[in-house]
């Protein structure tokens, strides 16, 4: 119900925006130019209103992007409704929003809806890479190292005490207490859970017998609502371990994860690197940068537990004002300036320069006003 209502509001906002921009946009466009801003100097400052909706994972990054973009383009007004990935894709397909944020790639049905709406294909741009940290609270252990199979055993609730031989094998130097392990998962459906279970099922082999799912597959045990709920639960107990967006880990211990033969510490570079290592998804339209995340990579210095969230845009916008604004906004998001802003406020990992040049080429290919 909620979703439908938001859809209508968004539709009204967009319709209103179109009406406004159609009235008297063009003369205004040129007169705000001339500021010494380096980011906006290559193209004329844009104006108008557009709305986006989708993944709540992107919300705080999106706020940073909107703030950064609007300060360079004071006449532009962008809104983002964090209704969830599914809701965002639906609204995008219905034409209620100009762009969508989504943690997963559109399915065939959604692609068809998007194609009808855009008059051409819609493309995914991986602009938000958020590393997922394995956080723990265990007195006396500062440097926890976990191999994928051990991690899966802990979260499948098969390994129940911290001095289990499998954990000891990963941590030869640590003094492990006999404290029982409380593994904390998300109690609501979330992209973080989906990516975490995707990683476990791709890498841990028989130790993780469950399908990847946004909804935690193991019954029983500790769970909490939202990232902050998980962090707070891990903090509130002894011998707890959980998974959460790296930016929210706070003072808690963050486990190193075994990739190939080495234990990798979580870092923005290591998280961005796994995206570069991953092949492009198959059967996607030209310019679509959806990837098949290579969770089982063995490349050195990659951190494979990441959440990649896409910005979904049309390859063709018949409304020129809307298209120009979307292009300008997404270009800003992909720019190093935009990526740094998101890293600062949301703790995401900035995309690499290689990926950036691909994204720029894709944005360039978006047709406007035809």
């Amino acid at each position, binding site marked *: *119900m*909620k*979703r439908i209502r938001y859809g209508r509001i968004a539709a009204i906002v967009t319709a209103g925006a179109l009406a406004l921009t159609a009235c008297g946009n063009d003369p205004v466009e040129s007169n705000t130019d001339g500021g010494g801003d380096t980011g906006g100097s290559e193209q004329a400052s844009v104006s108008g209103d557009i709305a986006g909706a989708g993944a*709540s994972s992107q919300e705080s990054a999106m706020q940073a992007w909107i703030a950064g973009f609007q300060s360079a383009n004071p006449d532009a007004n962008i809104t983002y409704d964090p*209704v*969830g*990935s*599914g*809701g965002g894709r*639906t609204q995008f397909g219905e034409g209620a929003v100009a762009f969508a944020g989504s943690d997963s790639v559109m399915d065939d049905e959604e692609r068809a809806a998007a194609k009808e709406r855009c008059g051409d294909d819609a493309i995914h741009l991986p602009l938000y890479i958020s590393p997922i940290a394995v956080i723990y609270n265990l007195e006396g252990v500062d440097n926890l190292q976990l191999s994928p199979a051990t991690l899966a055993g802990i979260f499948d609730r098969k390994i129940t005490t911290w001095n289990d031989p499998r954990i000891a094998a990963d941590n030869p130097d640590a003094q492990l207490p006999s404290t*029982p392990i*409380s593994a*904390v998962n998300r*109690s*609501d*459906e*979330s992209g973080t859970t989906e990516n975490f279970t995707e990683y476990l099922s791709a890498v841990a082999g028989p130790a993780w017998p469950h399908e990847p*799912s*946004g*909804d935690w597959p193991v*019954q*029983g*045990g*500790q*769970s*909490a*609502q939202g990232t902050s*709920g998980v962090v*707070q*639960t891990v903090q*509130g*107990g*002894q*011998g*707890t371990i959980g998974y959460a967006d790296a930016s929210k880990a706070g003072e808690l211990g963050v486990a190193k994860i075994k990739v190939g033969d080495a234990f990798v510490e979580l870092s923005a570079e290591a998280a961005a690197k796994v995206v570069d290592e991953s092949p492009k998804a198959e059967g996607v339209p030209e310019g679509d940068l959806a990837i098949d995340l290579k969770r089982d990579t063995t490349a050195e210095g990659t951190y494979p537990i990441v959440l990649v969230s896409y910005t979904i845009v049309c390859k063709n916008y018949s409304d020129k004002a809307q298209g120009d604004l979307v292009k300008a906004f997404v270009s800003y998001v992909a720019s190093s300036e935009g990526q740094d802003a998101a890293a600062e406020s949301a703790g995401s990992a900035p995309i690499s320069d290689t990926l950036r040049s691909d994204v720029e080429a894709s944005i360039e290919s978006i047709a406007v006003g035809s």
Partner: protein
Amino acid sequence: MTTTGEPATSTTPPAKQRTRTPQRPGDIVFSFSAKAAGVLILIILAAVAAFLVAQAWPAIQTDSTELSERVHWLGQGRTLLGYVGPLVFGTVLAALIALLIATPVAIGVALFISHYAPRRLATSFGYVIDLLAAIPSVVYGLWGALWLMPKLFPAFQWLADNLGFIPLFAGPAGDPPRTILTAGIVLAVMILPIITAVSREVFLQTPTLHEEASLALGATRWEMIRMAVLPFARSGVISAAMLGLGRALGETMAVAMVLSPGLAYSIFLLQPGQQQNIAANIALKFPESSGLGVNVLIFTGLVLFLITLLVNMLARWIVSRRAEFSGAN
């Protein structure tokens, strides 16, 4: 009563005259608007019920294998009733724990206000109790999750270590204690004010003659309360408890914040991830649900609606059954 009634019957002519006089516009407008308000309540209730049934219908109608396929969080091979059952169990369990804890405390507080405290203190104390009822449930949830839980853990651990042979308290106690017992305690604090407020009003209604009579017969204050106040107030206290139960059954935010949910018919009060309540489950699942998933959630909402309706009817029935013994008439 009978002596004053007889003169009244002898003055019937004026009453007849009154019925003959034409109604003034004010009478018509008022009676119409009162009627409209009464009918509106029924319409709203019917509309809510109709909405719930209509929205839940696709989930009821869909074949159970297809349903568990299309609503992935339902779990493999779980039917609709198999999904709602544990939720109903968890909802009722949390509410009962809350009621068991809150009712005795509330009666004590209400008796203190009505019969023990000095009048000036009683008034301000009553205000404070009413104030507690105004605290939003999300604040209770935060309080429970951030402040109460660390304080409860040692007690829970003690229970699990020493009374663990009783299935209710079987360990290991969850750390942090995000369990149904914590949820029940938070709910108890939330429903305490409403039970207290209603009970206090009922206790104050006790006829002073009854109280004075029992005191005159040599009863102590406690005996007076036991023999005059409590029997008189019994039905009122029961309906107060039912009001509290209604709130505890439908509580969403506080439960979602302090309980690690699970879907089992489990009576382990100290272990996390065993039970869940319907309203909190809807709040957790709704944001990422679509299509049939929403229908399933609305079906659970319909079940909750029926449970609260039943609880209210039960309360009415108890009150009406007890009324003749209470001395209120």
